[in-house]
């Protein structure tokens, strides 16, 4: 996987809830309820669009439509500044393309997506936000294992391009059986309004 780098400067700066993050970072955001989710995703993607970043949102169809509507204004060109691109995928486009979750297939798709997005776009930055609430009803031990395995392998893909990925899990939906392995699988965890480093995270 080729390594792409982003130019440094204000247009490449990325922050999550006011905390700077670096391209290649893989965050796990543990939030409570849709309202807090929206308050986190909107500025993250909105700032990206205004900075001309490539923005990808993976969310359930209803939520995806709502975000598309509210972020449409930030996508349009404004004056002489750059304009970003907002792309939205629903689980059926990737995670559940064949009706079941396949982490390997998802990682391939995402790698292909990155290659396509960054092709000929040196200096570009991508922001990815994936709200995993759709997975709540699917939570079984086997699904959890597959999801955690996927999460542990996401970091290397993210680091291969100047892109920041945030996996978002609703604490009102998911319990300790998922939270414990999720924490172990992420290098940075946003919880309780703070971004904490996890030096003991595991990789696949």
């Amino acid at each position: 996987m080729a390594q792409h780098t982003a130019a440094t400067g204000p247009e490449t700066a990325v922050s999550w809830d006011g905390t700077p993050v670096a391209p290649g970072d893989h965050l796990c955001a543990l939030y409570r309820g849709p309202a807090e989710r929206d308050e986190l995703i909107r500025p993250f993607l909105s700032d990206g669009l205004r900075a001309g970043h490539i923005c990808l949102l993976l969310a359930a169809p209803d939520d995806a439509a709502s975000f598309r509507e509210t972020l449409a204004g930030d996508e349009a060109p404004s004056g002489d500044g750059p304009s970003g691109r907002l792309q939205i995928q629903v689980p059926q486009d990737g995670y559940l393309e064949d009706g079941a979750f396949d982490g390997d297939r998802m990682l391939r798709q995402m790698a292909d997506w990155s290659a396509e997005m960054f092709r000929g776009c040196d200096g570009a930055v991508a922001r990815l936000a994936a709200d995993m609430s759709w997975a709540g009803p699917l939570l079984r031990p086997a699904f959890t294992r597959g999801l955690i395995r996927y999460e542990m392998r996401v970091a290397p893909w993210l680091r291969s391009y100047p892109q920041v990925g945030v996996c978002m899990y609703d604490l009102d939906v998911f319990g300790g059986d998922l939270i414990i392995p999720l924490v172990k699988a992420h290098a940075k965890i946003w919880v309780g309004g703070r971004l904490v480093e996890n030096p003991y995270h595991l990789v696949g």
Partner: protein
Amino acid sequence: MTATPGGSAPSRPDTWGREHVANLYSLSVLSMIMNAREDEEEILRLAMTSVGALGPCRAEAGVAVLGEAPVYPSPDGHGVDGLADQLRLLCGREGQVRVPGREWGRAVPLQHTRGGAGGYLVVSATAPPGDGDVFLIHVLAQQTAAALALAGARRLDRDRARELRQLNEDRAAVNTRLATSVATLEHQRSVHEVLAQAAAAGGGVAGIATAVHRLTSRPVAVEDRFGNLRAWAGPERPTRYPKPDATRHEELLQEAARRAHPVRVGKRLIAPATHRGEVLGALALIDPDGSAGDDEVFVLDHACATLAVELAHVRSLAEVELRLRRELVDDLITGTDDESAYARAAAVGHDLHGAHHLAVAQWSDRVADDTFMQAVGRAAAGLRTRSLVARRPGMAVLVCEGPPRGNALYQALVRELGSPDGAIGVSGRCDTPGGIPRAHREALRALEVRRRSRTPHGATTFDDLGLYRLLGPGSDHREIQRFVRVWLGPLLDYDAAHHADLTQTLSQYFECGGNYDATAAALGIHRSTLRYRLRRIRDVSGSDLANVDNRLNLHVATRVWKVLDGAS
């Protein structure tokens, strides 16, 4: 899953060790999540769902406080038979529990209360777990207990905050009520003050009306008990004050007095002023839009109390003055020293210095009641005669400053009483109070003479009684009449039989001192006619007019006849 250190984590030689450290770190993050929870059941459920992710154990139940119902990991929780009894036997210590189908079962204490008591996290495994796995369960239990303690502290804080908020709200409500009470009391104090000032200023009913207008900003009318306007304050004073129906007005005031509360009549709020159960008057607040509220009613109520005192005071003053006047007149008639009389008269507003006359009035068809006395007072006042009026048995007595016009007073009384059947006797002049008893006798004498005359209705002045003044009230009236009859009887009979004027001619002859020309001129007859009449007088009476005795007796008889005939 391959366990390799991520990021800047130090290299670990042992896979289990790295997994163990990762688990511990994930527990610290879980602790952050649990510490943010406020509901004990949520904390327990989070802990129980984490048990399976930390090793081979399975959560069976969670109990926040021993004795409370356990929380199970899922709605279809496994359930442990007799769990409550097993936990009670452990007495807060960690120990084994029997879980059906599981070889290993353990209850880990959750000591999160101040006294050390708490609940349990109950876990099980198909086989005894390793020490590292049990260690993680202990860490999880400790973090769960800490989160429960934090939640309890927060709940306590919430409860205290709620109590504090409730106390603040209660205090605010009390303060609001207090402020309302203070405002009400302030208004009432202001009402008392304004009304008290109005009463003290001596402005009478007009002052009270002005005070009520100032307090209510509405027009105010003060009425007597008959609905007559006594005072008005504020704009829109009617040019002609409407006179209410007497019966309905009386019923209205009595009803308002019974209710002890103002009553609304059309655009007016009416409150009666009562004193010792008697309605003395009323206050009417003009309130066309009906917006008068409790404050205005309060003002009316208190103003009515002030008005009642004022009206009762005025009435008492009138009664006292009347009594003082009566007593003064009584004493003047019976005789009192001059200085005392002057002082007492001055006290009731009458100057006894200077010439005074007494008049007595008696009406045959009227008793000398209050109405009669008031009529006498009005008649005298109408003639601009300053007088003291008092009641005596059967008559009214007036001590008048200056000479009263007897006939004018009689006519005024006829108008007041609607009856001519009365008489007035007027005394001669008296210059000091000491002369009043004599004047009273003179007035009585004049009244008696008038009443016994042929025209008993009218006024007679003592000074006009002439010779009759010599005849005291104790004289035998019939004897006097006999005297007149002896000397003038033939002439009177002749005049009556022939429609002649011999008696009047003789009287005028004596009054003119026997002068023929003056007598003829006074009578409007010719001198020869006078000669003829005098001859007829001598013939009819049989008296020689040249005889001195005859002449004296005839003169006296004509004088008496004139008085008795009312010709004076």
